[in-house]
């Protein structure tokens, strides 16, 4: 058994007795590397949204935890995620977003791949003007495709390839929100924004999970959305979050609001839910719009939040969309001092991970417990990364 970098035994206790994850899980590079495999590569992580590559041939390179990936909308319109690395000498294939008109040509020796990842040309591989060689089997040298799945327009990836199928791993959440499994229309330029925060990505999840902080950090909500109007969403080992019973639709000067999703149950007239889809995607649904926040861990103490808002139709009022984006951006920006403050607090060497309110912090504790479970599983495995401390 490899020596373990951290002791997680107290995290997995019942909430009234539990501590949060130790400081090292927020500030230590070695634990961050371990987490990369145990949490983010071994599960279904959010990478981007399919609206990032709306048209056939669109290609966008993305670096995820240091790994070069390439999003491509293939000839048939399917979203694919490839390792952005040529099978020949390991050159980066696409280094800026662009349209692939035909094949993906490596800029080094011009090996070419179809948008489906097939290796279609190996120029001069057998010598000048000879494009074949017995030792090079193109059928075995296509681009490495990363397992991916689209849900709520989010492109989820499982880099290890070992997770249960997405529909199985997330069956409970998909069932909970089956009413929202309808076409989502990205609101366009003003409905996407990015926040860069000086904190570990998990702190953004933890803050998003719970309503306990709302009256203190988002006082603007107090006038109509009191703490008692919220409820916990707790699915141990799966997801957690919070809901509100008093969602109010945004209205334009003409009194009109966004159109609703079709066929919603009556409860959604005033309900809205905000769920952390473990590990790194924050989702929100309302009768008339939804959003996804993809947390991109840029390092132990740095996170990029990519925010996307969606509507029920592609012709919603642009001014109203702008106002809605501004409202949400304000709320998310109000959280920045909290997550950055918790990050600084994690350098307090005598901090023990903290305690949880047994009444109010259930969703957050579930996330800590799930993270700890991923480390337990990983450390019990024979994966080489699990023994990095040896």
């Amino acid at each position, binding site marked *: 058994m490899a020596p373990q970098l951290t002791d997680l035994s107290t995290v997995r206790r019942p909430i009234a007795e539990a501590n949060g994850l130790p400081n090292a899980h927020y500030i230590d590079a070695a634990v961050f590397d371990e987490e990369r495999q145990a949490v983010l590569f071994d599960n279904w992580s959010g990478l981007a949204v399919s609206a990032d590559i709306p048209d056939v041939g669109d290609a966008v390179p993305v670096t995820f935890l240091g790994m070069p990936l390439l999003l491509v909308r293939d000839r048939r319109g399917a979203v694919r995620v490839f390792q952005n690395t040529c099978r020949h000498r390991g050159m980066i294939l696409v280094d800026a977003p662009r349209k692939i008109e035909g094949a993906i040509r490596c800029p080094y020796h011009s090996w070419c791949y179809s948008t489906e990842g097939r290796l279609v040309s190996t*120029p001069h591989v057998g010598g000048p003007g000879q494009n074949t060689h017995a030792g090079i089997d193109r059928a075995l040298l296509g681009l490495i495709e990363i397992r991916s799945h689209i849900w709520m327009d989010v492109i989820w990836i499982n880099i290890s390839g070992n997770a249960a199928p997405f529909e199985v791993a997330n069956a409970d959440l998909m069932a909970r929100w089956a009413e929202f499994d309808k076409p989502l229309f990205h609101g366009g330029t003003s409905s996407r924004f990015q926040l860069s925060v000086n904190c570990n990505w998990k702190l953004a999840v933890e803050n998003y999970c719970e309503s306990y902080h709302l009256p203190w950090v988002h006082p603007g909500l107090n006038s109509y959305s009191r703490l008692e109007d919220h409820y916990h969403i707790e699915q141990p080992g799966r997801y957690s979050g919070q809901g509100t019973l008093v969602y109010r639709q945004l209205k334009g000067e003409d009194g009109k609001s966004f159109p609703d999703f079709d066929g919603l149950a009556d409860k959604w007239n005033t309900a809205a839910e905000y769920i952390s889809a473990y590990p790194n995607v924050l989702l929100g649904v309302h009768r008339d719009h939804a959003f996804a926040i993809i947390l991109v861990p840029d390092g132990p103490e740095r996170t990029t939040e990519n925010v996307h808002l969606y509507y029920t139709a592609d012709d919603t009022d642009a001014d109203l969309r702008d106002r809605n984006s501004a409202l949400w951006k304000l709320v998310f920006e109000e959280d920045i001092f909290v997550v950055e403050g918790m990050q600084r607090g994690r350098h307090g060497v005598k901090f023990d991970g903290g305690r949880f309110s047994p009444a109010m912090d259930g969703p957050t504790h579930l996330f800590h417990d799930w993270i700890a479970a991923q480390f337990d599983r990983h450390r019990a495995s024979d994966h080489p990364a699990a023994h990095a401390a040896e």
Partner: protein
Amino acid sequence: MSTLNDHLLAAHEAGDITSLIDLYTQAGDSSQGSDAAAFYLTHAMVFALELGDPRAAVLRARLVAEGREEA
């Protein structure tokens, strides 16, 4: 050939792939010897593939006929 070479360099400089297909095809057509011809036609085919240009199939067929490319 020096003029063709100049045009090729200019097309590379400009990233003008359509012209590169034309010019490398011309270079292949005017080459002495099958190795040199296949070399240039391969370049023409690669750029045609990159552009999704239908000439890729024609160029590929020529190379296959010469045993230079997978059938």
